[in-house]
C-alpha cells in the first residue's frame, strides 16, 4: 500500500496539498487536473524524486525518505511521456534496463533477467519488436516497450506521466485496456496522469483530482465529462 497523509508538495513553497491518498495494488487510478495544477509535482514527490515539503508518504508502511534509491526502484517503476528512443539501443536491451536495480556489481544481465524482459515484452504484445532499435519505433510502439520496461522492473507500483499524450485514439484505448488488465491480473498499483477525460470515464477509473485550488483528493469514478470538468475548475 502506498499512502500519503497531510502532504504538501512543491519545489520551495507548497503548490498543492492532500489530506489522504491511498494507492493499493490492483488499483488503476487516474490523476487528473489542468496544466500546471501540480500533477507532475505530485508524481515526482510520490516517487521520491522531489523532497516532501511536509506530511508523510509511506510505501508498505515505511517512510519514503527511508528507502534507498536502489530499494525504491524495486517498488516504483516510472514511465514518462517523452521517451523518444535512443540511437543504437535495441528494444530488448532497453527493456532489460528495467532489471537495473537487480543486477550485480558488474552489471551483467543473467539468463533469468533476459527471460523476465522477454516475458514483459510478450505481456504487452510487443515481442516482435525486440530486435528493433528504439529510435525507429512509432510513438505507440514506444509506449508499449516503455511499459514492458516498467514491467521488467517487477515493482508493485507503476507511475505514468501522460502516457497517452502523443498517441492516436486507437493506441490510447489500447494502452488503457492494457493498464486495466495489468492492474487486475498482475496486482499492480498503477497511477497515471492524463488529460483523456473521456477514456477515464469510459473505463470507470477511480480518480485523484487536482483542482485549481490545490487541494488534491480521491474521488469515485465519474459518469459525465461535464461533472468531472466542473470539479477541476
Amino acid at each position, binding site marked *: 500500500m502506498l499512502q500519503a497523509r497531510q502532504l504538501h508538495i512543491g519545489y520551495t513553497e507548497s503548490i498543492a496539498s492532500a489530506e489522504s491518498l491511498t494507492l493499493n495494488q490492483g488499483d488503476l487510478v487516474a490523476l487528473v487536473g489542468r496544466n500546471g495544477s501540480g500533477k507532475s509535482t505530485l508524481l515526482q514527490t510520490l516517487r521520491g*524524486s522531489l523532497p516532501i515539503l511536509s506530511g508523510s508518504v509511506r510505501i508498505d508502511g515505511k517512510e519514503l525518505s527511508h528507502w534507498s*534509491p536502489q530499494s525504491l526502484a524495486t517498488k516504483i*517503476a516510472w514511465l*514518462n511521456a517523452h521517451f523518444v528512443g535512443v540511437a*543504437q539501443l*535495441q528494444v530488448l536491451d532497453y527493456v532489460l534496463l528495467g532489471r537495473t536495480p537487480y543486477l550485480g556489481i558488474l552489471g*551483467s544481465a543473467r539468463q533469468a533477467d533476459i527471460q523476465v524482459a522477454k516475458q514483459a515484452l510478450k505481456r504487452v504484445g510487443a515481442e516482435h519488436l525486440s530486435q528493433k*532499435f528504439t529510435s525507429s519505433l512509432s510513438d505507440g510502439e514506444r509506449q508499449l516497450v516503455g511499459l514492458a520496461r516498467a514491467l521488467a522492473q517487477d515493482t508493485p507500483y507503476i507511475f505514468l506521466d501522460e502516457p497517452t499524450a502523443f498517441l492516436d485514439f486507437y493506441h490510447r484505448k489500447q494502452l488503457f485496456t492494457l493498464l486495466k488488465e495489468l492492474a487486475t491480473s498482475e496486482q499492480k498499483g498503477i497511477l497515471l496522469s492524463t488529460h483523456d477525460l473521456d477514456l477515464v470515464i469510459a473505463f470507470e477509473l477511480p480518480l485523484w483530482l487536482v483542482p485549481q485550488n490545490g487541494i488534491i483528493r480521491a474521488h469515485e469514478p465519474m459518469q459525465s465529462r461535464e461533472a468531472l470538468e466542473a470539479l477541476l475548475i
Partner: protein
Amino acid sequence: MSQTKSHLILLFSAGVLLLVVLLLYLKTGYFNTTWEQIFQALTNPRDEVSSTVVWSFRLPRILMAFLAGAALSVAGMLMQNLFQNTLAGPDVLGITSGSSLLVALWMMTGITALGSITDLIFLGILGAMGMGAIMLLFALKLRSAVHLLLIGLMLSSFIGAIIAIIQASSATQDLQQYVFWNFGSLQRVTIQQIPWIAVITSLGVILSLFQVRVLNAMVLGEDIAKSLGVSIRKVRIMSILIAGILTGVITAFAGPIAFVGLAIPNVTKLLMKTQNHRVLLFSNILFGALFLGVCDFAIKLLESYVAIPLNALTALLGVPFVSWMILKNRHVTG
C-alpha cells in the same frame, strides 16, 4: 548473425590489427632492422644498436600511442554518457586544458613537490578533475549542448591565455620543452614510465567496469536512471573522477591530444550498434588504441618528408569528423 557474434568478430579483428601495427611499427624507422633483430631485442635484449632502438625509441612510443588512444577514448565515452551529448569529450569540454595549465605551471616555473614523475601524474589528474567539476557545474545549469560546448571552448581559451602569460615570462629552455609537450609528443615517454601509465590507465578501466550498470541506465536520461535506482550524484563523481584520471595521466606525459576522445566513442557506437557499456568499454579501448597507433605509424612513415605533430594529425582528421557530427545532429542538439 547474432549481435554478440558480430561484436566478437569486430573486437578480434581490432586485436589482430593492433598486433600487426605493433610489429610493423617496431620494424620501421631510420635504422634498418630485420625481423630476427626485432625478435631478438624483444625476447633477449643485448647491448646492440637494434635492442636500443627497439627499447628506447620504438616500443615506448607505440605503447604510449596505444595507451593514450585507449585512455582518451574511454574518458570520452564517460563524458558523453554523463553529459548525454555525443559532442562531449575531454578536449572539447576543456578537461584536457585543465591538465595543460597545471603541467605548464610545473614545467615553466620549476616548482616541484613530490619528485618529477609523481608530480607530473598528480598535477595532470588534478587539473583534469578540476576542470571536469567546473564543466559539470555549468552542465547542471545549461541544458543546451551548444552552450555547453561554447563554455568549454571559452574556458580553454581562458586557460590558454593564462598559459601564454606563463610562457611569455619563462626561460627559453623551459618554453621549448613546453612547446614540444603541447604538440602531443609520444616520443618523450621512456620505457620506464610506461608501467606507471599502464597501471593508472588500467585503474581507470577497472573502475569503469564497475560503472557499467549505471552507465547503461544513464542512457535513458537522469530522470529515468534515477527511477531505476541510480544515484545521479555518485555517477557524476565517478565519471569525472575516472575521466580525470585517464585524461590527466595521458595529458601529463603526452601533451594535450585533441579529438580522439570525441571521435572514437562515436565511431565505436556506430560500429558496435549497442548501448551496452561493457561492450563499448572494451571496444573503445581497442579502437582507440588502434586509431592512435595507426596515426603515429603514419607520422613515422612521413617523418622523412614532413614532421607532423600528433596533435596536428588528430585535428586534421578530427575536425572534419566533428563538423559532420554537428551537421548530422543539428536537428537534435541545441
